[in-house]
């Protein structure tokens, strides 16, 4: 097991003075592939926002790379890529695919400095990794939801981050493209030695691909390896997971087989 890069200690967080998550304790090690599952409104995105440093905890302590992510320096922020669920950001905005990926480099380039060929090459390289370089000069709105999600991942990985955070990245993507998307994530994880944290409703994918699962419904009800978490009937019920499907799936091998992507 790698060193711990994320730790939550008795964290309470939410919006407008109301807690969405309470008393969260969580550790994520370098190289982990963590799937976060749970019902809508249960606080999954809130946990991601705390890790990304977009949201400040009301109580408790969040540490990412040993520091408070809400007060991250620019250098620390470049170590994290955060890909949101929403791909229809600011529809009609006059930018092409390459422009969007270049944005990921802006903080590192700094004010008043030009975007040189070196940066443009880096953006193309990130697009190649997600198979989107052929679309580099298309307007962002001309892409499908799945293609846009790949572009936002390119923007995230353009700085060679250590941690990739994804919030329901396959929402609105058809089944065929979903499995291609998960293949891509798995390849990126291997190529770039990434730690990945992903919120997903896709329990079968969670079971096949991730190394750890957290079940979040205002609290973390259970955290561990998928086999243990997804067979914990009580935890699954609290987190609104279809236990019939899972237990049926386990018996028939539909959920836990094949484990072709499971890390050793």
């Amino acid at each position, binding site marked *: 097991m790698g060193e711990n890069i994320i730790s939550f200690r008795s964290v309470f967080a939410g919006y407008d003075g109301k807690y969405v998550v309470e008393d969260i304790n969580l550790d994520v090690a370098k190289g982990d592939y963590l799937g976060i599952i749970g019902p809508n409104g249960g606080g999954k995105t809130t946990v991601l926002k705390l890790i*990304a440093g977009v949201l400040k905890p009301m109580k408790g302590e969040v540490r990412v790379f040993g520091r408070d992510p809400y007060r*991250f*320096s620019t250098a620390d922020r470049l170590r994290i890529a955060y890909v949101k669920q929403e791909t229809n950001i600011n529809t*009609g905005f006059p*930018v*092409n695919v390459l422009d969007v990926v270049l944005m990921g480099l*802006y*903080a590192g380039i700094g*004010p008043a400095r030009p975007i040189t060929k070196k940066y443009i090459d880096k953006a193309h390289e990130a697009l190649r990794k997600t198979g989107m370089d052929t679309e580099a000069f298309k307007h962002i709105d001309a892409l499908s939801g799945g293609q846009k999600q790949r572009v936002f991942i390119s923007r995230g990985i353009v700085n060679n981050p250590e941690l990739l955070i994804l919030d329901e990245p396959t929402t609105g993507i058809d089944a065929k493209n979903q499995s291609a998307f998960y293949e891509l994530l798995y390849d990126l994880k291997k190529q770039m030695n990434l730690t990945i944290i992903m919120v997903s409703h896709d329990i079968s994918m969670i079971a096949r691909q991730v190394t750890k699962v957290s079940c979040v419904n205002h609290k973390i009800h259970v955290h561990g390896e998928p086999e243990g978490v997804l067979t914990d009937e009580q935890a699954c019920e609290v987190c609104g997971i279809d236990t019939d499907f899972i237990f049926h799936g386990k018996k028939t091998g539909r959920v836990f087989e094949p484990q072709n992507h499971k890390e050793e």
Partner: protein
Amino acid sequence: MTDILHYAFVQKALIAGVISGVLLAVIGVYVVLKKMSFIGDGIAHSAFGGVALGLLLGFNTTAAAVIFAWVIAMLIGISKKNSKTSEDALIGIFFAFTMALGVIFIGLNKTYNGDIFGYLFGDILAVTDADLYTIGAVCVVVLAAVYVFFKELLFFAFDEEGARVSGINTEFIYFLLLTLITFTIVASIKIIGIILAVAFLIVPASTALLLTHDFKKLMLLSVIISVISTVTGFICSYAFNVASGAAIVVVATLIFGGVTAVTRMGKG
């Protein structure tokens, strides 16, 4: 008609109009893309309170409007981040409050207030040397800030949360943009007027957005449309003896209507 160009006051008016048109067009691109037109309106109307206070106390009205509108813009920005009230409602509250203060200040002023109409609707021919220098200085400062923070403003306008996560100081960029909007509006009051300033922030950029999907071309087109509207509006204002701000906005809106019709026909 060209004879009038020999007059110094006409030259001053045209130069000030063109500079103001460029400024409004550039900042207007961000206002439109970030969907901040209501906050722009709030800032413009709060400048009215500043102008009225300046007239009441005998201060320089531009300086009074800048300070007053900037303080209100910052209050809107801070309240948005810390209040449970929605941004829309907050802007509406500050907007009404500052207009009300302006009306009270005018009521308290015992001297003649004939200038007020010019501040509200623009009086391009009344531009003085001091106004021209002020507009020129504001133009240099605003365009320099846009040049320096071009990338950061673009990312902020496209995806604020994404920009913050990637390491851009989005709070600074937000307050910078509010400051640039304030400076631009106040510097353009003599040309376009308080009531119509926000229209001229929005219309050229919205027209340009119908014509291109490229950000740099958008900015250039917005400036071209703005300058054409300003010069044509100025000529109409002079020819028909109507308020310059109103004439400029009517021309800009007609161009918007024409471009909308042509682009729709093109799609149809």
